[in-house]
């Protein structure tokens, strides 16, 4: 028995090391999970979270009155699917191109440059977009369209699905290209040697060696993104369109809705209900996606 006690004592310093992080995660991550019950309460600022009365599902009923809820769910899912398909395709193409570059220095230079957009905050990206699209001073209206038929970008919803997709791809393709590139450089070079001896051209090699070898990574990354289809990049959908109300039809996602309901229109009930749905559906999907990844490619699964 004293031996066992000793064993635990030996680990006390290690547990002490984990203490600050544990406290932080409890506060920052676990307590808000409990706060999700707010979705079932009629929140009253003076009563606070615990004392506010329950009101069953009425927050959800209010949320689904009108078209708002469906629209934001449609946008969140729709954009995510477009981003997954186009983003993956672009990243794979760029990764294959990078791999074909023979010079080490050139390859490193390309890698460095395509990551630059990833480094920049969404706020600054929104300035760049504004410099191109501004009604009065924008590059496109002034220089490309020469002031004739100037387009009022920030009030025309029809352009925004394209603009947002472009911005998202521009910002993220470097990052995902590097991930695929890391897989490609891990492919056994003898495959390619054997293939070129057999007379296979570059294209044939890509189709019959590179792509099959990338398959586990593609599946894993896609599943993980599918696990996150109920989440959106708040900055992309709020900041880039500059919060324009006229564009809400095509820019409102669950995240921007929750923010607006909570901090702009002060409608805690609906914000909490939308947030609850996002957390719950998000959890189910992430969990399910990981179970599948685990079956296909154990190493890359989250658990």
């Amino acid at each position, binding site marked *: 028995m004293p031996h066992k006690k000793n064993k635990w004592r030996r*680990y006390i310093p*290690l547990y002490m090391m984990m203490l600050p992080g544990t406290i932080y995660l409890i506060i*920052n991550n676990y307590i808000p999970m409990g706060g999700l019950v707010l979705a079932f309460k009629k929140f009253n600022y003076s009563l606070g979270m615990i004392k506010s009365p329950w009101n069953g599902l009425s927050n959800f009923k209010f949320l689904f009155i009108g078209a708002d809820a469906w629209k934001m769910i449609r946008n969140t899912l729709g954009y995510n699917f477009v981003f997954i398909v186009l983003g993956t395709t672009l990243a794979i193409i760029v990764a294959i191109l990078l791999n074909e570059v023979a010079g080490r220095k050139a390859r490193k230079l390309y890698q460095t440059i395509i990551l630059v957009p990833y480094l920049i905050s969404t*706020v600054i990206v929104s300035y760049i977009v504004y410099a191109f699209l501004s009604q009065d001073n924008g590059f496109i209206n002034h220089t490309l369209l020469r002031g004739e038929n100037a387009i009022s970008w920030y009030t025309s919803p029809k352009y925004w699905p394209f603009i947002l997709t472009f911005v998202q791809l521009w910002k993220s393709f470097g990052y995902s290209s590097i991930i695929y590139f890391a897989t490609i450089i891990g492919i056994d070079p003898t495959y390619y040697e054997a293939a070129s001896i057999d007379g296979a051209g570059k294209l044939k090699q890509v189709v019959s060696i590179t792509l099959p070898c990338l398959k586990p990574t593609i599946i894993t990354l896609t599943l993980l993104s599918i696990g996150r289809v109920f989440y959106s990049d708040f900055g992309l959908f709020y900041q880039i369109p500059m919060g324009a109300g006229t564009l809400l039809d095509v820019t409102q996602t669950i995240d921007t809705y929750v923010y607006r309901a909570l901090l702009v229109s002060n409608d805690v009930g609906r914000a909490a209900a939308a947030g609850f749905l996002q957390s719950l559906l*998000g959890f189910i999907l992430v969990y399910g996606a990981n179970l599948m990844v685990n079956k296909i490619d154990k190493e890359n699964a*989250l658990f």
Partner: protein
Amino acid sequence: MNMKKMKYATVILHLALIILCFICIVPFLLIVVSSFTDETTLMINGYSFFPEKLSTYAYTYILGGGGVKVLHGYVVSIGVTLIGTATSIILTILFAYPLSRRDLPLRNIFAFFVFFTMLFNGGLVPSYMMWTKVFHIKNTFGALLVPNLLLNAFYIIMMRTYFTTTIPTELLEAVKIDGGSEVTTLSKVIIPLAKPMISTLAFMIGLGYWNDWMNGLYYVTDSKYFSVQNILNRMLSDVQFLSSAAATQSGISSVTSNLPTTGVRMSVAVIGLLPILMAYPFFQKYLVKGIMIGGVKG
């Protein structure tokens, strides 16, 4: 013939990549050039890559006192980034090292405790209520520092994996036989060996702090605590934001009408961009490595 064909292919390959790189860089040039463009030229010709008349007025305006708020925001941003990154790295290492020890009792429970935060979260509403009603962080320095950014489960896992894969168990045993405590093991053996990973994570965490504007948007309304990103955010919706300070300070309200707002906006964006672009070349290899190691899960 075949050689010639290959040469063409190489040219096309590089051409494609160069075009891609141009698409990545050219948008930045537009705001950089615009920030150096004469204000009247901007009014007449708009933002352009080849302006008729250049000017450094936007920058002299900011540095010459018109941009007190910008410089103040810069100090806030630097402070938050330095303190936040240092604290976050320390917390991450302190959590990751015990988790990497195979002999630690309850190790799996702690690993799950970290990992579960990646699967499930309470979202904005409960977090906002907690931080504002319980911890009263609204309009404090802590609002920029603490919520969400201080400790990231993903970084803990990356760090732990690095410890388990690069630091041999025999080494730890040798230190223990020599009578070293856990703290000396960590500071004298583990941390020096993990420098590449620490640099990678420090860059990523620092980037997160420098670029963060969401905490400021949610929790800060007092411009005293605005970071550069929050100032930029505010200027986008309120062009007069900078000038309103200058006006109240000098006591003249008519000053606002002739302020170079169009160019100043872009120069503040460039100033916000600068530290990252300056640090990036030094951290480039760490960043690429970080993405390669942990990217699939990120």
